[in-house]
């Protein structure tokens, strides 16, 4: 059992408020992604859970046990650090085995785990090398392997795939999801990459300015953003927000806009066309406001053309223009 309860955690560095009275409950075996822009407090929250940073207020419970005042080693967790923190004086195999050796695991188990995680992270050819002889991406994989090797009940990861090249990242993402689900590891995964969060997480917590802006399933976060910030941070390209009547904003995803016949929708003057293969991305203006439209497939559209748009009514998300919060959707 390694559910986590974060109870009113706040953290201030001098005058900087990194976290503001934050509550979060992660169920046993759940995968939660902390998603947010750089500087929103993701790393700080992770470090407080790990016991590397002392919270200004609040408690952390792991598996029902209050660990707020316990040192990191007594919390029964593993962590992947943002800057790898791979031990430079140890070979890759000794790095991976470090946690198990400290726990005085049996030799056979250590060997088995090193071989298994090295295989998983494609590190087998490098086991005898020192970290200085590895690329950034390889070092990052060593950091992940070191954490997986201890088979932790709770795994904290701070942007663990950020330094891998695109293809490897995609591979590793799928592998990681598979391994962690199979092992039933409770995972908190920090990322600023919304695709990664969507792909991996059972639930996503969107952080902004030291608060949780919204927490929910990837689908809920994507389709029903609770705030304007969530809508514009999640999704690439982000949600469009168009001024409407009565102080409302109309939030609509670029792919939820259809082209209609002349005169049947909003006039849209195309300024940029980006054919991406699976999609064609249009950027232009409607009524003086910038709008992005994603059309499935390839279209031949010239920049400067005028098209007519109609947002799908069931996909519109109404927001309060003043507060940026979602309104009761019946109004739409």
């Amino acid at each position, binding site marked *: 059992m390694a559910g986590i309860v974060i109870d009113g955690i706040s953290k201030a560095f001098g005058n900087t408020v990194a976290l503001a009275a934050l509550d979060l409950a992660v169920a046993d075996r759940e995968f939660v992604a902390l998603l947010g822009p750089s500087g929103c407090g993701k790393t700080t929250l992770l470090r407080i859970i790990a016991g590397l940073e002392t919270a200004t207020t609040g408690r952390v419970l792991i598996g029902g046990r209050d660990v707020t005042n316990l040192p*990191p080693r007594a919390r029964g967790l593993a962590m992947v650090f943002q*800057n790898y*923190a791979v*031990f430079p*004086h140890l070979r890759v195999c000794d790095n991976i085995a470090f*946690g198990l050796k400290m726990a005085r695991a049996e030799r056979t188990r250590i060997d088995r785990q090193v071989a298994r995680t090295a295989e998983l992270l494609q590190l087998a050819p490098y086991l005898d090398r020192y970290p200085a002889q590895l690329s950034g991406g390889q070092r990052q994989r060593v950091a992940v392997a070191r954490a997986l090797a201890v088979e932790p009940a709770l795994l904290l990861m701070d942007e663990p795939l950020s330094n891998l090249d695109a293809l490897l990242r995609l591979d590793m993402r799928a592998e990681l999801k598979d391994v962690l689900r199979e092992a039933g590891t409770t995972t908190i995964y920090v990322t600023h990459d919304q695709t990664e969060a969507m792909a991996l997480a059972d639930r996503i917590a969107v952080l902004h300015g030291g608060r949780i802006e919204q927490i929910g399933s990837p689908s809920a976060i994507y389709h029903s953003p609770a705030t304007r910030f969530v809508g514009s941070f999640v999704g690439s390209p982000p949600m469009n927000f168009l001024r409407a009547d009565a102080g409302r904003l109309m939030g609509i995803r670029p792919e939820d806009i259809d082209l209609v016949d002349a005169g049947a929708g909003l006039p849209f003057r195309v300024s940029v066309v980006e054919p991406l293969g699976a999609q064609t991305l249009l950027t232009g203006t409607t009524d003086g406001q910038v709008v992005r439209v994603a059309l499935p497939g390839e279209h031949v559209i010239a920049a400067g053309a005028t098209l007519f748009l109609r947002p799908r009514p069931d996909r519109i998300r109404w927001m309060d223009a003043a507060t940026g919060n979602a309104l009761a959707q019946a109004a739409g």
Partner: protein
Amino acid sequence: MTTRRGIYLLGVVVLCAWVLVPIWLIAANALGGQALIAAWPKPLVPTQMSLDTLRVFLAIEGVGRALWISFEVAVLCMVFSVALGLPAGYALARYSFRGANVFRVMILLTRAFPVGILALPLTVGFIRLGLYDTALGVALMHTALALPFAVLVSASLFQAIPRELEEAAWVFGCTRLSAAWRVVLPLAAPGVVATAIFAFVISWNEVFAASVLSARNRTLTAYLLAVLADSPLTYQFAGGLLLIVPSVGFIFLVRRHLFAMWGIASR
């Protein structure tokens, strides 16, 4: 390109000469016998090399003993400097405490305090404590001289080791102490070795405090100063050579670690 290379090579030659010429002069005078000392210009390689002077010198009453005491004192100084300097350096590097900067300056100020003024009270104090004329007493004084260096160097050493490495060790099951032992110390080792050697060399070369604080159990420097002032020049050179050789040899032995330390520093 070629001029830059020329300047570079010239620099290398000048620096090497700066270090090597005096050593060569001392070695030549020590090994070349009486005739060579007066000779000028000196031959590049002395015509009649002999260890006679050195042998005679070593046979002088008390030289062997002084050599041993020097060694004893230098090793003690090295041990004390490392044992006290590392924790202090670690504290300076890792914790921000009230007065850390003042502490830093104070450490340096101890070096600005002239030993000459301290000599008499120290001697009196040491006599009272039973430390006068012992290797331990001189080693303590030398530790006081070497410690500022040991503290400041190890502080910058520990500062260069990312805190995240220690944190990773804590997360993966280490206590603060075992993390320091398993992660920090191995990474700091080259610098620690350099610090230790520096303490050794400071002690080995120090003459004033060693002379003041001892009477019969003198270190080699103090002994040479007291006994050899009136001896023939060639014996003085032999003494000089004997003083240089261990320092140079020691540094030569650990040069790999020194380079390793600079490698870390430049990364």
